[in-house]
């Protein structure tokens, strides 16, 4: 298939009227999961904080496995695209990425990445339709930059600038680089997180902790 044909199909998918805004609103809704950081880490609640998200993602994975095997009708899954028919759906990738961020990454790294998946992805999607790919990625880069600047505002200005540029680049590359086996909903979260993790570890290796104070503090129990 020629590139222009692929682009046309992608555009047609993007304006699929009903599913279109449903997908967008699901993305922005995901920002609500930042509530996770308000939950205290102590006692049994700390355990629940780990077990429940894993349980949710495992349930989604089982449902999606049944869908791929054909036991559940693909058409009953609202908002799925045609290319998701024979592979894990984007919501599973999104959930897995979110789970990894919440459980394995420090809050300072996870928060901007979750925000980028929630807001940058829909912004790029909308812009791509109206303005074309290049401009959409430029806008996506600026939105991501803003989100990183906002969430790391307590850091030293040199760290703030470096982290924001690295993070925003990771977001745009994660969104733009299409791989058939990994969805961009996963990459847009995990790629910038890994890049920031590397920068943080490199700074730690040199004896500097660049992580600012966390934005969300757990409630007292």
């Amino acid at each position, binding site marked *: 298939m020629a590139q222009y044909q692929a682009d046309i199909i992608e555009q047609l998918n993007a304006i699929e*009227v*009903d599913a*279109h*805004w*449903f997908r*967008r*609103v*699901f*993305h*922005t*809704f995901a*920002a*609500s999961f*930042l*509530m996770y950081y*308000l939950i205290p880490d102590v006692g049994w609640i700390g355990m629940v904080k780990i077990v429940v998200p894993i349980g949710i993602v495992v349930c989604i994975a089982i449902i999606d496995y049944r869908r791929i095997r054909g036991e559940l009708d693909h*058409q*009953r899954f*609202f908002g799925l695209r045609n290319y998701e028919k024979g592979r894990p759906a984007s919501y599973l990738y999104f959930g897995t990425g979110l789970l990894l961020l919440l459980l394995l990454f420090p809050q300072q790294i996870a*928060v901007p990445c979750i*925000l980028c998946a*929630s*807001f940058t992805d*829909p912004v790029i999607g909308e812009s791509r339709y109206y303005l074309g790919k290049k401009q959409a990625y430029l806008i996506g880069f600026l939105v991501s930059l803003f*989100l990183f600047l*906002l*969430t790391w*505002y*307590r850091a030293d200005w040199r760290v703030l600038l470096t982290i924001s540029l690295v993070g925003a680049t990771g977001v745009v590359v994660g969104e733009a680089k299409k791989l058939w086996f990994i969805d961009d909903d996963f990459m847009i979260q995990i790629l910038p997180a890994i890049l920031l993790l590397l920068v943080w570890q490199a700074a730690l290796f040199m004896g500097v902790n660049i992580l600012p*104070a*966390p*934005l*969300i*503090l757990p*409630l007292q129990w």
Partner: protein
Amino acid sequence: MNNTTPQKEAIQNLLLRLELWFAPVLIVVPLVVSLVLVWDWFSRGFSVGLSRYDGELLLAILILFGNIAVDIQFLRSIRTLRKKE
């Protein structure tokens, strides 16, 4: 052909109902989360003069306006679909 058209319509209706059922959750939860963050910022931070909770206010504003912007379009699309139905 006669069999597939009603079947397609039934699936469309089912999907539409599913979307409508999800709509309140998708719209209300982010608003509640924003309010909780604002409340937490106010009660633990602003009211006692601690600035370390200011980040929660920033996030609350971001979640609130980010979601409202998309929710408006989403509700419009649902209204259009209902009219069509």
